[in-house]
């Protein structure tokens, strides 16, 4: 598996884990295709000694609302809460990616998410290292993109170690 396929697989697995069974299908798509009228967009930057980049996700408010874990609260989510939850989804997604990369020896430090409302996202150039993904969920479509630059020395295939994962609890 080449590095692009590996990164795509890691990203898809992270999203599917994050959305906890809500994903009907997950595909990598041409990043320079049509932009999306997503209305809610969250981005987080990250960096480390061997990797750096940005992760983003976008969806309509209805999709974001449908992905809120507490069904009994979904109708109560106003604009501000939906924007906040979009940022938290991006935060948890990057967290999962970080944990996966950490098990492969790549350390990342992340910023706090920025949420944009009422925008559409379009990847302008095929010359960038942006990978784009489409996730179909019952409520609609959820888009994600990953702009990841890895040092040439990074080998994602070898030396995978164990480590904590999403949902784990450690007590001291």
């Amino acid at each position, binding site marked *: 598996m080449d590095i692009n396929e590996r990164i795509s697989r890691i990203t898809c697995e992270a999203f599917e884990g994050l959305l906890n069974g809500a994903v009907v299908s997950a595909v990598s798509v041409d990043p320079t295709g049509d932009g999306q009228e997503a209305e809610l967009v969250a981005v987080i930057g990250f960096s480390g000694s061997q990797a750096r980049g940005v992760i983003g996700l976008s969806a309509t408010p209805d999709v974001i609302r449908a992905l809120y874990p507490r069904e009994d609260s979904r109708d109560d989510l106003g604009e501000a809460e939906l924007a*906040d939850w979009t940022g938290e989804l991006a935060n948890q997604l990057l*967290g999962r990616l970080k944990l996966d990369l950490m098990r492969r020896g790549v350390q990342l430090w992340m910023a*706090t998410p920025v949420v944009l409302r009422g925008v559409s996202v379009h990847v302008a150039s095929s010359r960038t290292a942006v990978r784009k993904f489409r996730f179909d969920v019952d409520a609609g479509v959820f888009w994600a993109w990953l702009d990841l630059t890895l040092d040439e020395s990074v080998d994602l295939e070898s030396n995978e170690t164990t480590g904590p994962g*999403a949902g784990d609890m*450690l007590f001291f």
Partner: protein
Amino acid sequence: MRGKVLIVEDSTTMRDQLRRALVPAGYEVIDARDGVEGIEMVKRHPDLVLLICDVNMPRMDGITMIETLRAEGPMAPILMLTTEGQPELIQKAKAAGARGWIIKPFDPRLLVKAVSSLARPL
């Protein structure tokens, strides 16, 4: 009532999810949006039975917050709730007095069990 828990977390929806897990379990919940507010709330509420604290927050992160509080004296048990999993961060939190580390997302039932087992007795 099982005691007062402080949640220090910048996400309103995460604070809401935590509140909805803890209040039905009998806890009184107060919250803060970052480490600076968290320190103020700890000083204002010396009767806390537990703190639940995020790591990545604006103004002051969770590790810095608990290190600052530890330097000021004994306090309620601390449970970290975060997307982070770096061993160095976990060790820093442990050294600063944290008793647990949960990687998001959390299971509400398991969270309540963790809080019950770690919370300071009333």
